[in-house]
């Protein structure tokens, strides 16, 4: 039974962590648009690959 003295605080710590993450996600607007991100994931891969060169190329042109 003594293990409970350790395990319960651990569970409390985990709950605090979960609540903190959850509140952060709500406040940063993760739940605002439940539709768009589902689509955008399909384009994500390519975006990372050429993002860097894209960005610098784009910047030069627009200036």
């Amino acid at each position, binding site marked *: *039974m003594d293990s*409970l*003295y350790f395990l*319960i*605080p651990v*569970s*409390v710590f985990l*709950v605090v962590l*979960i*609540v903190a993450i*959850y*509140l952060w996600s*709500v*406040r940063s*607007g993760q*739940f*605002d*648009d*439940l*539709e*768009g991100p589902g*689509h*955008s994931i*399909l*384009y994500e891969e*390519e*975006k990372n690959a050429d993002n860097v060169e*894209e*960005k610098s*190329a*784009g*910047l030069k*042109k*627009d*200036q």
Partner: protein
Amino acid sequence: MKSHAKSEKHQVCFHCGLDVPSGARWGVDFNGQWKPMCCPGCEAVAQAIIDNGLASFYQKRTAYSVTAKLPLETLEQDKQSEIETEGLGDVIDTSLMIEGITCSACIWLLERQVTKLKGVVSFKINYATRRAVLKTVQHQIHVSDVLSAIREIGYQAVSFDVNKQFYRLQKERKDFLGRLGVAVFCGMQVMMITLGIYVADPSDIEPNMLQFLKWVSALLTFPVVLFSAKPFMSAAFRDIKNKMPGMDVPVALGISLAFLASLYNTFTGQGDTYYESVCMFVLFLMLARYVEFLTRWYAISSSERLTQAVPMMAQRVGEDNHIHSVAANTLVLGDQIQINPGEVIPADSLVLSGESQVDESILTGENEPIDKKSGDRLLGGSHNLNNTLRARVSCVGEDSTLSTIARLIDRAHAEKPAWVEVADRFASVFVGMVILVTASTAMVGYWQGQTDWFSIALSVLVVTCPCALSLATPTAYTAAMSSLFDRGIIITKGVALEQLSAVDRVVFDKTGTLTEGSMRVSKCTLFGQQSEQALMDVAISLEEFSDHPIARAFKREARQMNCQVENIEQENGAGLTGQIEGEKYSIGSESYIRRVLGKRFESIESAETQVYLSTDVNLLAVFEIHDDIRVGAAKAISWLKNQGKAVSLLSGDKQIPARWLAKKVGIEDVKSEASPRDKLAEIDRLQLAGEQVVMVGDGMNDAPILAKADVSISVSGASQLARASSDILLLNNDMQALQHVFSLSKKMGIIIKQNMMWALVYNVGALPLAMAGYVEPWQAALGMSVSSLVVVLNSFRLRFVLSKANKAKQQKRVEFG
């Protein structure tokens, strides 16, 4: 740019999917292939997209883009947008509304195009609302630069004032989610620990361990009480300050008493704790409130959808017949605009030239496209489908159909019917009683020396909360109104819905109500020597001066000659007399002409409405006016009869046409040749006989009669909305909408009764049990919360009563291209 001469048949524009005009030479080089374009606008946009290295947009997209417009000049309002921005420090936030998004790839394209601009910190588009938040570094980039970058790739963007109401709701929703989440996670832990204590024998747990578990529960309950339950606490505090205790007072009292007592008992190490009851109580109550909030959210977002329907750009035809792109909100009355196929109509207007089909489903809920030709009304926000139209703006700003609808809906939702206030007052008396009963239970228990007097009192307090009772009706109303709105039915007075189910008789007007009101001259019988066309010219010239619905039939006819009319004398609703080239002519109903001629003549039997034309001595011609019966009228009437409602027709028209129409649609009780005063008297007579009367009219010519009836419904259609005055407006041309209103009102009545019954049975039944000590506090918490959740969910069902047609509509919207 290369120019390839290539003219295959049935080529579609690579960018927007429209047919490429034969001989057109626009196009771009895409991955080494020549792609044809329909116009220089699309060409410029596609070229810009490819030049910016975003060509893969064309592989990603699942729908064609919107046709791009040239010239892409900077708009006036770009400069204004600077003022509307607000920000802290160096980073400025701007809200943008974006038009032209057809699929998710557009969002990808836009976000890439904008985020690569220097000075843009972030650019996030919400796919569901088509709104974006732009964060820019001050002094590095102007919002107008971003807007022109967006325009370069073929979209329209405009900065807008964040709608206060929408913003507030969004914030409220986040708030709810946060509080609910905390209650769920912490409550789960507390329940887990408590379950262990319940299941185990008291001897199984060492006192030290028990004390430890209780302290942990206390720790976990803290955020639930302080954070999750905060709305109840602050509402209760406000109520007490206003000396008007509502249902939040016993809730807050229950939560805080239970928590404080548990804390005290934990501290002293003896007596019961109620941590799990507190958590569960808060969690379920929050859940009930959240579901109630969602019904409100849906209701408001559907009217929000309306305000987004009007496009930002319009094509104004200038004096030199050139077309300029202008911001839609700069249009003024009388402007000439051009609406290309596929575009949204920017303002209420009258068609000048062109014929096309228009989809008005966003306003009327009607899925069938409607034919429009010269002289017809167009509604701002509806969708032009096939051909180019030229139109004259007839209504802008506050008076436009869209704003009127939005205003009416807001009013209906904001309106607090008298009975709600009565219910509120009733609730505060009820709350007073609850607290009194609780206090006396506690005192009696304490004097009798019961050990668990506190927990009994707590149970009584929680179990008798009148939450379910006060949620019973408002939730049902919100759900019913928003469900009807999706079908193009607007409730301007909430109470009307409830009254409707108790109605005994439905009285219809004839012209413009059971009939379409779009009249035409179907037959002409001549009595003199003059030709039909000559008499028609005279009739048209005379009717120019009348605003009677029948006059419209003449105004539509073609005329050869314009006659100068002098000395007009009108008799309202009967006819008019005027002088043309020295000769006196009269036009009007049979009885009017009889009076003019001062002699009898043989009347002609006809099923149609008749108009007589005469000089002051001779009858010249009789015109027959044909009017189509409104779609679904017969079905709606037979359905009403099946529901046991009496149906009558009250018409100002002559007996034969009135009877003929009544027979066609299946009405037996007909009153014809009734003047407006007769109609009022008839409604009065029916009401004195103890009947509840619904009057269905066109909402314009019969306003006083509509006001007299218990419930008024107008079928004016969306175009005449601003002038219509009634409790319920059917925007849809189809009469069967009546059926929806009646069946939903009946359903709503049933649901309100169920809610009330349930709330009362629960409250009355649980009280004695709780006082006798049979109900543990956690059971009371569960029972109370579940009872309000049941009420809210039961009301929510109203949204799905009419859901079938909506699905079809949504599918149509998603359609490719």
